[in-house]
């Protein structure tokens, strides 16, 4: 065992490089996905078909074609069109497009779940539609969408593992290198899975804190969730976004 630990210790720098890459992919992908989700989600709730229909088609397209297909397309096919992206950009872009499409559905349905009376009250105060969405509807929809977005964020973290297929030295790739270096599959992969689990847990804690803040702004204060329980007591039983 001590020998294994010293092997792990010796491998430390590479491993932390891998963790940094995975975290960057996760955060970059999540930021991109969030922007895409906002644009597409808002387009889908407008009463204008010329905005809503293309948005809906984009969402269904990126939900329907698998993440790996999108990644390979960006990595292998795009250069043939004259657009050469480095693997990191490819990875972030594929994650952003794929999870952005799923998140757009969450944004759309959360906005639609905000009480109709809120739209009417805003109208009665003559607030402009843009102002009403920004100041009244979105803050309320935000509290509704965080739990689903948290589920998607963890799925995105798990999804980052595919970038090892396009030569990126992320955590998954580093674990494989550790396996080869230590010659012990069980050890290397247990360490790797544990690191992923802790990352997921940290993301969940962060999202719980965000949710709490959003709910407090709506005047609702409730259970403080933390600890290991927050990830064991799991999320919505729905891989597809809430309907």
């Amino acid at each position: 065992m001590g020998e294994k630990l010293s092997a792990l210790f010796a491998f430390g720098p590479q491993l932390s490089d891998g963790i940094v890459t995975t975290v960057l992919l996760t955060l970059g992908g999540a930021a991109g996905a969030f922007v895409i989700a906002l644009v597409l989600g808002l387009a889908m709730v407008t009463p204008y078909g010329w905005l809503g229909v293309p948005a809906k088609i984009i969402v269904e397209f990126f939900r329907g074609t698998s993440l790996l297909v999108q990644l390979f397309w960006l990595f292998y096919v795009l250069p043939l069109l004259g657009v050469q992206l480095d693997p990191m950009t490819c990875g972030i872009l594929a994650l952003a497009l794929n999870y952005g499409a799923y998140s757009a559905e969450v944004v759309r349905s959360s906005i639609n779940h905000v009480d109709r009376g809120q739209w009417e009250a805003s109208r009665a105060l003559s607030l402009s539609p843009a102002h009403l969405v920004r100041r009244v509807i979105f803050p309320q929809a935000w509290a509704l969408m965080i739990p689903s977005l948290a589920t998607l964020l963890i799925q995105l973290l798990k999804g980052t593992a595919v970038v090892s297929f396009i030569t990126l030295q992320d955590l998954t790739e580093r674990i494989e290198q550790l396996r080869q270096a230590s010659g012990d599959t069980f050890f290397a992969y247990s360490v790797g899975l544990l690191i992923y689990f802790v990352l997921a847990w940290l993301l969940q804690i962060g999202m719980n804190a965000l949710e709490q803040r959003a709910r407090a702004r709506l005047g609702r204060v409730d259970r403080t969730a933390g600890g290991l329980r927050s990830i064991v007591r799991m999320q919505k039983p729905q891989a597809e976004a809430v309907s």
Partner: protein
Amino acid sequence: MPSTDSGLTAPGSTGPGSVGSDPAIRFQDVEKRFGDNVVLKNLNFSVQPGERVTLIGPSGSGKTTILRLIMTLESLTDGFIYINGSPLTHEERNGRRTALPPREVRRKTRQIGMVFQQFNLFPNMTVAENLIEAPMHVLGMSKADALAKARGLLDKVGLADKENEHPSRLSGGQQQRVAIARALAMDPEILLLDEVTSALDPELVDDVLNVLRRLAGETDITMLIVTHEMQFAKDVSQRVMMFDNGAILEDGPPEEIFTNPRHERTAKFLSAVLDQ
């Protein structure tokens, strides 16, 4: 223009509006359908500036729809609504009924305030923030001015100490009084009250009604009220319109309608409401 305009000559038109000035609200041949369901048909009436009118009638008779049409929460199927003499959502142009652009509609609705059955306060804002949002961003008031005004209004509705509370911490009656203050913060010329006490526990109703009674006594805001509180209607309104099946069945001063209805439908409706 058809001259079936019952409101202009209605016996109850005793408001301060003088002859020759435009009515605050005028419905002209208004029709509203939801699919095949005709809610209002060929409706004509006027409300004079400063007049307080209560709409009564069985549920489904179209009262609430009238308020929602004025607030432009519903779009009318046919006809015209005029606010202070100018068209609200549609106008006649070259002999054709034409919709006005949304921006222009919104400019008109600034003169109109509405209080809802379900309060509809913004839960993501404090009480004070609820009151200053529209004055700041629609009327362009400074934050200091808007806040000063908000405090004055909260004082009027008896909630001066609640300005930093979240709406969810208030009782239904308190929330509704905040909603009234929020509507008044926009200095509306017309105030629409849509069953404002229907969602309240009985013991909270009086607080809200008393605020409105005081308001009626102190201001000359034109009010259109939908309520089942007949005593309140008698106290504040100068005119009552009885609706049935999307049409005006009776229109007159409250004393007359409540004590001496001309139609049996009205009498039946009143005795049913008073029995509750």
